[in-house]
């Protein structure tokens, strides 16, 4: 994905993370902007199923050749699924940050936190 893209069906955290809300669950990942700033991702180190993540706290790390970045949780909850394919193909984070490059799926512990996230337009505006 070479052009900036911030899908409207997602909610965004100012630390460049997205969440796809599905009832009491959410899928999380990093935004186009974050993967572009980082460069080619060479390694992803994420939590295991069952781990707790807390809003605004790091839950994973992504590395490029010359940089490493914490991945910040936009919402709190328990990890119910992880993207196993990132272990062998971390480049998916660059190629398709919103689909094949997703990181974890969580069961929300504080669904009301969703209200604090940005919509696509506000997030894109914050990058100006």
């Amino acid at each position, binding site marked *: 994905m070479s052009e900036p893209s911030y899908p409207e069906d997602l909610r965004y955290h100012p630390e460049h993370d997205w969440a796809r809300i599905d009832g009491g669950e959410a899928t999380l990942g990093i935004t186009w902007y974050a993967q572009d700033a980082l460069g*080619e991702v*060479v*390694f992803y180190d994420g939590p295991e199923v069952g781990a707790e993540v807390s809003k605004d706290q790091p839950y994973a790390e992504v590395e490029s050749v*010359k940089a490493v970045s914490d991945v910040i949780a936009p919402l709190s909850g328990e990890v119910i699924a992880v993207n196993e394919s990132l272990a062998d193909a971390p*480049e998916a984070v660059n190629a398709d940050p919103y689909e094949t490059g997703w990181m974890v799926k969580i069961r929300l512990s504080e669904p009301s936190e969703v209200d604090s996230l940005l919509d696509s337009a506000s997030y894109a505006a914050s990058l100006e």
Partner: protein
Amino acid sequence: MSSATLTETPQQAERAETIYEKSVPGRRAAQLPPSGVGETPIEELIPAGLLRETPAELPEVSEPEIIRHYNRLSRRNFDLDTGFYPLGSCTMKYNPRLNERVAALPGNARLHPAAEPEDAQGALELMYLLQESLGEICGLPHVSLQPSAGSQGELAGLLLTRAYHADRGRNPRKVLTPDTAHGTNPASVTMAGYEVVKVATNEDGGVDIDDLRSKVDEDVACLMLTNPNTLGVFDSNIVEIAGLVHDAGGLLYYDGANLNAIMGQARPGDMGFDIVHVNLHKSFSQPHGGGGPGAGPIAVSDRVEPFIPRPQVVRVADGEGGWKYDLDEDRPKSIGRMRGFQGNFGVFVRSYAYILSLGGDGLSEASRLAVLNANYLKQRLSEGRAGKYLPVGFDRHCMHEFVLSGAPMKKQLGIRTLDLAKRLLDFGFHPPTVYFPLLVDEALMVEPVETESKEVLDSFADAIEKILEEAERDPAIATEAPYTTPVRRLDEVAASRNPVIRQPKPE
């Protein structure tokens, strides 16, 4: 580029082969002496279950093949004896060959580290003399030579800080470092069990005093500072900074990476620092060896002295009107050992020979000429295209190094600092340090050192001008560089995604 320049050089045409790929079963180099005690089967000496079953896959090669292999590899390195190496914060000064000769004297090179002190009097005396010399240069009376490198000196210094506070019944948790600090500083801080607190930089490139004041409290164990700092700026507020930290009960740690700017001009001890590490491979001419060895002795004030690593080389009266030298292990408050034996003695020999060669007058002159060279090169690079595309980060006289920003070059010419660096390789120069300090966008950190001539500095400035002129015409010349090096730009992404870090085992 013209097709002529894209012709593969003979060196490029030669595929890199490892020594393992040159192995041929049955070949060998070593001929060992006979044991002289009979060929008892090894199983009769050591129980079979503790023995190796399959030999290690080391190469099978003859001696001439080894020499040729490594000579060929050596030609794939750029080195200081071949050309200008203005790597910022690394002090790539000439490595005198005399130092290699004296380090190799059998009395030094073959001396066992567990020799009785009376069998090692020359070595201990040399270490004592080096301790005294470094103490004078740093303005701090006590020196431990033990740390193996600057990074280990830092860690030792932080452990000294911890011991110093503990001895006073205190347990502060924070260490302040400027945001311009070398990455080693925060890494060492964590390993010493402290928490890093960053201090901002002011518009002159020094410590932001207001920010410092807001962060100094009784929970601060020490402030780590490089002065001149990584921007090549001497912090004129150093006395005030020292006062602030000392008043709160903290210590001041001096990262000696940039000591080459101030030898004989000013001393960290006189600025208020309590602990200094010195990189003998920078200011004191130990060759860098492609990434070691070095040594990172520390100099400390009286109040920190009880805690320095053991053993310490001491001089004691010999009872006959002279001196003898000994290793003092009996240091009850010492933090203990940082490593085995007495430190990198071979490095001490070279650095002490260097100090004798230059003398106090020569060391002082070396720093003055390092600063002259840096300011001259900074001036040359403020002219012409360099002045336009590569502005200096902080516009004042620099010390021994200076930092340029490639941001305008990137914006106006479409070439990054990395591209400029790679193109410099084609001109026969090692590039400056790039992308450090992080504070300066597209940073280029230049340290020309005192052992380079004006002609070399001029030719470097000319090369930069030429590269920028090329880039105005065709940025691809730089973005695709280098062309003439043994290999061209390498795929670092692949190397980190799927690391291959050893020769695969033979089929």
